């Protein structure tokens, strides 16, 4: 809060206040921009927030590193249909699919010197965190978020040791064994909601139609995410991979097959290389959580080695 805003607040007892809520990233076309003001508000630092039927729970402020939880209740406007495309689907359906899980949540409180002016004094950051769970009720989407301090709620060092290591080598995505880039695939026929066939797209580091071996993604728990693009219907969705293998299809064509633990809500749309339309996806290898994993992958181990309890050592 600037000195100007502080002076304004202390000098007045009549205020125009509004909440600005952003769920998602600024550059994400699917991000949700909400405000509880009756008309849209522009906070130039971020963008345009739209009036919505939205409420949030109160925010408490206290000393310490305990993470705060936030509940946002949003009722999207009516008459939004369920589709098979994440770009046009109803927010209720997307919430049910877990589309919003782990999205960033930010809330600002704007102090308006004149009604509708969210720019002059700007807005103060009120809450920041990530979506933890989403409940879908008959008339509302209830978004539960934990603040950023939740990342500190892990006891160390046990969680970085060997098989309990959840952070070793965590780099967002991990290239397959022996490669330096993340492979991109176009969906091939016949893919289903649990069996995804992919043909590598021509990118640096991969030859056309490259087939990966079973150990190349350090399965299980590698993961697959669908891209946005022309003709994409599953953008942003994906899941953990149980196994990958070579698949020989019709006419002797070879594809990479990825078997998912959980089915997709609908089957992907096959990719047409000529028109460059359809679903594409990328696959990340699983992080190497143990020394054995890292050795098998040819990586230096990034966690803490397991050290047995002294009294158990003969």
């Amino acid at each position: 809060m600037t000195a100007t805003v502080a002076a304004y607040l202390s000098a007045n007892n009549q205020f125009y206040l509004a909440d600005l809520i952003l769920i998602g990233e600024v550059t994400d076309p699917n991000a949700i921009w909400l405000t509880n003001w009756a008309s849209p508000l522009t906070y130039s630092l971020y963008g345009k927030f739209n009036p919505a039927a939205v409420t949030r729970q109160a925010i408490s402020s206290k000393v310490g590193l305990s993470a705060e939880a936030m509940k946002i209740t949003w009722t999207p406007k009516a008459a939004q249909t369920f589709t098979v495309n994440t770009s046009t689907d109803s927010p209720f359906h997307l919430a049910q699919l877990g589309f919003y899980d782990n999205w960033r949540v930010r809330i600002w409180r704007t102090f308006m010197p004149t009604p509708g002016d969210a720019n002059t004094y700007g807005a103060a950051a009120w809450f920041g965190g990530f979506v933890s769970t989403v409940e879908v009720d008959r008339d509302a989407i209830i978004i539960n978020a934990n603040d950023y301090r939740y990342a500190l709620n892990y006891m160390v060092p046990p969680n970085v040791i060997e098989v309990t290591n959840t952070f070793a080598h965590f780099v967002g995505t991990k290239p397959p064994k022996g490669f330096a880039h993340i492979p991109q695939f176009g969906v091939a026929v016949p893919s289903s909601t649990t069996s995804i066939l992919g043909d590598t797209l021509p990118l640096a580091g991969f030859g056309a139609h490259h087939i990966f071996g079973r150990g190349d993604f350090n399965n299980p728990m590698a993961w697959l995410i669908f891209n946005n693009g022309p003709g994409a219907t599953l953008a942003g969705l994906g899941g953990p991979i149980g196994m990958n293998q070579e698949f020989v299809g019709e006419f002797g064509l070879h594809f990479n097959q990825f078997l998912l633990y959980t089915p997709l809500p609908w089957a992907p749309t096959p990719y047409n290389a000529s028109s460059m339309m359809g679903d594409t996806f990328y696959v990340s290898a699983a992080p190497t959580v143990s020394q054995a994993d890292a050795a098998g992958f040819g990586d230096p181990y990034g966690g803490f080695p397991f050290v047995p309890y002294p009294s158990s050592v003969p």
Partner: protein
Amino acid sequence: MTLAIYPNAVRGLMWPVMKTHDFDTVVQKGANRSEVRINQYLNAIWHWTLSYEYLKDNPQDVIAAFTPYTDYRFFEGFILSNLGQFQNFLFDDLYDDSLGANALPGGTATLPSIFHTSNYPGWQFYYPQGTYVADNNAVPHLQQVIQGGISGTTVPSFSTGGGTTASGTAIFLDTGVFSGANAQQLQTVSDTTDPISAATVGSSGGSGFAVGDYLSVTGGGGTGGILAVASATSLGVITSFSIVAGGSGYTTTANASLVILSGSGTGSPTADITAATVYYSPVQRNFGGQYFEDITDLNVTTYPLTVWDNGVLKTAGVDYQLLGPGLTIPGFSFEGMYLQWTAAPTTPVTALGQFYFRVRFESDQQDIEQFMQKLWTVGGEKSKNGAGFIKLVTARVPGI
């Protein structure tokens, strides 16, 4: 979706009609009665409380607007079709529905009335001799009432050649073009941050793009500009853009560089951008000369929205675009319709028109009592056990 219109023609509406406004101000008080007050919205929430002395249910006494249904059956059918509180509809408050003129007869030459038909008993408008009306011609004329009387049941074609026009028992004389300067003044606001106001594809459209992909405008000297792919060829070459965010600080630039934000497009697409201050006039009615209220729904049945800039009549689609509802620019926010000017207006901007209130029923329950064969009432003299009113309340335009 087109909203239904409340059936004002239903006979039996009686006085008084109560109209209440509401602001939901949050007031925090201390023991010393020191207060902090927080306003929650600018546009009042209106409540109307209506009562009907009688509602006819005689199949031999139906009016043209509802035929073959009786007043009661049409009225209750309207309430039922809106599913209680569920549906929004439009309400023409005939005594408070005009922009730029008096709603009721008796206007002057500088502040005339609009013209209302007298369709049904209870909705009759008497135009006193010597008063003035702004007519609904494309170039509005000022009509003087040379013979006082009740207006007719249809809107006449008002004379524009100095002649007379009869409507019901009233006679109007054309006195010439209505001076737009006397209509209601609209605010004019501007986005001076030089946002991108237009963008076309530059020398390169890239490839592999899809409709809806976002690109950030990094050229042109400004920041925050985001374009979306509005159309592309089958190979994903961009052919047109839509503006997602105008950003600020831009100058008109050819082949402004773009950065891909989403999608799997490639190449180095560019955009020819136009950036300039954009001027807007929110469509608002001015209550008593003191309170501006956003208008979300215009009533163009009789009066199209007529706009003047410094007294000069302006053309929709040429001089301005009528957009909305909902406008936000840095420093300003409006809930209703607005004009986006093609070029900076000279000002003052004035307008003449009519509007509806967007409302819903305030309750899922409506008591309508039958007190005699073929006669019903809501709060009339014969009412005994019912709640005695129909309540309407303002409904906001749906957000997201």
